[in-house]
């Protein structure tokens, strides 16, 4: 199993109030799955994605990647694991403004052991895969929202991660562009067997995924896809 989440709870303080963001979530995700995490605002979607993305730690429970408990790793090892295993696509794209599209895609490669040439070749390949081969030297402020998100997807793909986590990747895009982004993700999932987990509110996008995880008040609620209103 690629990812096992075992009875994960997450609480945090908001002023004097103790907020229980996740109240014991367990889920297994196999390689090649295309999973959407849905739920109303405050249901714990982002917290859940942060925990499986290893950028946050659970209050209790385990997040296990390929049999390794992430909470037992040092920060350095967890960071290296994140770099090689997990790709991120953010709602606001989070591209580095002083870098070109190509340099942005090269970034996670240069954090690892890739040489500059290897990183450049791989980044070119990934940008071609998302249809941006003509925009490699453009900086983010010269790209449209959809193009920026495609650069972000190319960046997430660059290290050939086992899993890509996307927190509302289409929230800042119009519906046509959103659909294009989902299609790109679907194609990569089907063609290269890359696991995708993303959160969304958009019912049209939810229809396109194989598996939906519904969250409410920090719990997984089993629902059918068509039940979302």
């Amino acid at each position, binding site marked *: 199993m690629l990812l096992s989440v075992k009875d994960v709870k997450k609480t945090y303080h908001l002023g004097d109030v103790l907020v229980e963001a996740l109240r014991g979530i367990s889920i297994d995700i196999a390689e090649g799955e295309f999973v959407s995490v849905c739920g109303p605002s405050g249901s714990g979607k982002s917290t859940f994605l*942060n925990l499986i*993305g290893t*950028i*946050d730690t659970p209050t209790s429970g385990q997040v296990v990647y390929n049999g390794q408990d992430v909470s037992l790793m040092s*920060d*350095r090892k967890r*960071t*290296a694991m*994140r*770099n*090689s295993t997990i790709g*991120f696509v*953010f709602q*606001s794209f*989070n591209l*580095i*403004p*002083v*870098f070109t599209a190509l340099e942005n895609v*090269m*970034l*996670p490669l*240069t*954090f*690892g052991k890739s040489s500059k040439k290897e990183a450049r070749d791989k980044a070119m390949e990934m940008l071609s895969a998302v249809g941006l081969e003509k925009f490699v030297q453009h900086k983010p402020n010269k790209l449209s929202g959809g193009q920026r998100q495609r650069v972000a997807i190319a*960046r997430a793909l660059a*290290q050939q991660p086992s899993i890509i986590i996307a927190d509302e990747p289409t929230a800042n895009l119009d519906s046509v562009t959103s659909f294009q982004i989902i299609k790109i993700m679907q194609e990569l999932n089907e063609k290269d067997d890359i696991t995708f987990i993303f959160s969304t509110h958009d019912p049209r996008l939810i229809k396109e995924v194989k598996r939906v995880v519904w969250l409410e008040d920090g719990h997984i609620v089993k629902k059918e896809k068509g039940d979302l209103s």
Partner: protein
Amino acid sequence: MNIISFAFRNIFRNKRRSFITILAISIGFVAINLFGGYAMNTFKSLKISAIYGEGIGHLTVYKEGFLDNGTLDPAKYMISTDDMKTIEAVMSKDSRIVKVIPKLSVSGLVSNGINSTIFIAQGVNPDDEDFLKKDFPYSGEGSPISSKKPTGGQVAEKLAHMLNLKLGDVATIMANTLDGQMNAVDLDVSGIFNTGTAATNDKFILMPLSLAQSLYNTESVDRLVLLLNDANNTVPVKNDLLEALKKADFSAEIKTWDELSAFYSQVKNMFSMIFFFIFCIVLLIVVTSVINTMTMSVVERTQEIGTLRALGLQKTRILEIFGAEGFAIGFVGTVCGIAATLVLILAISAGDITYYPPGIDTPVKIIVDFVPSIIITSGLFLIGLSFVSAIIPSSKASRLNIVDALGHV
């Protein structure tokens, strides 16, 4: 990721802020360079002036005890002609010694026949004096002391004015001989000159050694001034000479030029203190400017830091990124500072600006030397300081919770 390239791109993200920080570093750096260059030029000028202009030489040899007790019992501490032979035999073996100049200091009363006042004088062979001051051409009225005029002397400007002495006048100089008898000799005023310092310009006379010896009724001298082939040999020659003279059974005490030139030491100490003060102010400006800039940069780029960490950048690399930006700011600031220093040095040189330093009667031109050692040392120090100043706010950034950083607006 090329951290240096990233750093240079980032410092131009907020051009105005980076410009002000770089400007602060440049101005501080220029201040250090200009004052350092001015101080070094002053030290150099004072050194040359002390060794050759004042005639202190590189080393001065006295009979042991002269400096402490010579005033009370001068006869006991004179260097006799026999002593001279011993000393010259020792010195002739050291090729670093270029010239040995015997001198005799005398003091007493000088009179124009109506009025009299105190004087201090130095007796030196005119040919030795010519050798010593070959790079300091005589600029006073009349002519300097000469072996052709054994009774001719140079009288300080204010002393001549006080006694209404003119060129060609004859003054009488009076003093006790070494035996304690009153003695008087005539001095022809062959030159009137400005000593350059107010402390001596109203009492100094330079005369031939033979005249000074005649006044004190002696064939001895009280000191030997040594000129060396290289000022860097001053201390080694002093040490070697002390040992060699001891072996030759002559107890000597030897002073270096900077030990004898109180003015040089005082000016150097004062300039060093001012330089230290300016350096501290510049450090404070650089540290506060860079910390302020980098703190604002960290706050503005918190989400970016979170992104980089999420993508797998180690904490230590965050420190490297901001440290490199501090380095880049420091580097650009010092490069601009070097260019500005060069321009200002040329402008000051072309401006021909003069001033009267305290205690100096002649105008001194402001000259600022381009001193690579000061520029390199202080430049590297400022760049290092910028680097360290950038590390302080970035260490906090590296410890940020990634989720909080990503959610930062």
